[in-house]
């Protein structure tokens, strides 16, 4: 059910200066970004930055206070039914139906989209196979491990064959095996051309998985771009990390105008020039300093600060 103005070059999702306030507290203060068809877009930020609030406004759970949100060229505020039929949402907490078995969870959920029974059954079987849950279809809710529950959440989110899949921290709290399985499945979906919007704290995974991402903090977009570009622009190619450096080092770096951060007792110097960083290590911290490639985590911490968020 696509509308006539749904051109292929049009962004799947477009936010323009979106705001949300709860009483006096402004959770989202003017967020703008766009996601193109087939793209995987990451929304990164510390806890309380406004990620989940933003996502909830996108899928129509929370009404926005100001700005514009267009999905498939339509406004979620008026075309909520048409838009939500084309969305898949995997919420942060477990919202599986505990009164239903694994298979029933998929069938009943498909029903909410008005998908006919026979079609729902075919899709459910297909999804159970895809998410390695075939042997578990009669399992009751309490028999599911954390990893299985999350896979089922994801399977349920795509039972309506969405054009945009929204994932709110899909891997939080999972063990490494479950996490890897989940990323593999997400990668499969991405290769099949699914457009994905996700929030995550898993920097390494975001770096590998997202085509583009934006970091938001205090309800605003701090920076946006592709992972490699962001690392190059905000950190550089290399990082020199030192545990408890002598005070002279920081003084030297400040005087030289170097790019560096402090995090507790640690000091991190960024740069593209490997030789210069090695020389620095030789001079101040031959033992305790180590050189490593700069990562998205460096960008994240540089952009949002290193202090603890609570």
């Amino acid at each position, binding site marked *: 059910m696509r509308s006539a103005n749904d051109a292929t070059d049009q962004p799947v999702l477009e936010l323009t200066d979106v705001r949300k306030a709860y009483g006096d507290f402004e959770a989202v203060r003017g967020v703008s970004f766009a996601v193109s068809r087939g793209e995987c877009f990451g929304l990164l930020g510390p806890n309380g930055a406004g990620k989940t609030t933003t996502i909830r406004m996108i899928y129509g759970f929370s009404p926005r206070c100001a700005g514009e949100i267009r999905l498939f060229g339509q406004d979620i505020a008026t075309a*909520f039914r*048409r838009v939500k039929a084309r969305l898949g949402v995997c919420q942060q907490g477990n919202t599986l139906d505990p009164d239903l078995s694994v298979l029933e969870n998929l069938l009943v959920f498909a029903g909410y989209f*008005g998908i006919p029974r026979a079609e729902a059954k075919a899709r459910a079987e297909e999804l159970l196979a895809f998410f390695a849950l075939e042997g578990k279809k009669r399992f009751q809710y309490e028999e599911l491990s954390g990893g299985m529950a999350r896979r089922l959440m994801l399977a349920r989110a795509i039972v*309506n064959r969405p054009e945009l899949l929204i994932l709110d921290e899909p891997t939080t709290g999972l063990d490494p095996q479950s996490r890897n399985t989940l990323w593999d499945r997400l990668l499969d979906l991405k290769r099949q051309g699914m457009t994905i919007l996700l929030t995550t704290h898993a920097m390494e995974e975001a770096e590998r998985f997202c085509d583009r991402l934006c970091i938001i903090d205090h309800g605003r977009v701090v920076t946006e771009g592709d992972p490699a570009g962001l690392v190059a622009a905000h950190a550089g190619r290399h990082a020199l990390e030192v545990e408890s450096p002598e005070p002279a080092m920081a003084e030297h770096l400040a005087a030289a105008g170097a790019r560096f951060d402090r995090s507790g007792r640690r000091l991190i110097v960024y740069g593209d020039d490997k030789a210069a960083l090695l020389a620095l290590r030789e001079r101040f911290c031959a033992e305790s300093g180590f050189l490593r490639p700069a990562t998205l985590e460096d960008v994240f911490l540089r952009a949002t600060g290193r202090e603890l968020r609570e």
Partner: protein
Amino acid sequence: MTTDPRFTWLFWTVWRRNLFVYRRIWTINFLPPMLEPVFYLLAFGLGFSGLVREVHWNGQTLSYTEFFAPSMLAATVMWQAFLETSYASFVRMFYQKTYDALLATPLTVEEIIIAEIVWGATRAVIAAVLMLTVIALLGYVPSLHALAILPIAFLGGLAFGAMGMATTSVTSSIDMFNLPIFLVITPMFLFSGTFFPLTGLPAWASGMAQGLPLYHLAELTRSACLGLLDASSLWHMLALAACAAIFIPLSLAGMRRRLVK
């Protein structure tokens, strides 16, 4: 661009989900409405009939059990619908996060809440039919008017289901439901012309009792069982419809406030 409708037939899918879960444990769900009348009628028939020889109601002279048996139908409708949209809906909303999941589909708050209330009414109808069958087998339903119990139970179920849902919309913890149950539902159960006719009461008390929805429901179930449905029954129907018409919008407004953040 046109705005999508807030309410469509998609609400049946939520109703269907509840029916599906109910059917799975139908043995447990079916037992109380079938056993309750047997216990009550035994207790009142054996133990009470010596104390109360006859009851005068609406110009009729009835045995106590004849008077009381239809009251149980009304009370069951009230309990089934109210408990479903209070405790059970609260569990789905608060603990199971079912509504959160539903709101990520094309369903709206309005559809979810109406489906829950209609489901509460459906449960009430199922229980009433089971109980009616038992009461009829025991010989307390001499009239075919009793078939009207189906729409009556549904209407009553909507009224009490809406009352339960309105309560849920303002309840912060599950223990809080004790309060409306102890202060509203239980007194209503006792004072709605269910255990004794209102005619014996002082005018002020009988006047107050006539403001209770269960009074109107009990009058209807008794008239239906005894084959005495007439024009005055329409007034009782209207009273129940008015109750639903007040509490359904209250539930919707309360739930919108609660769920849409």
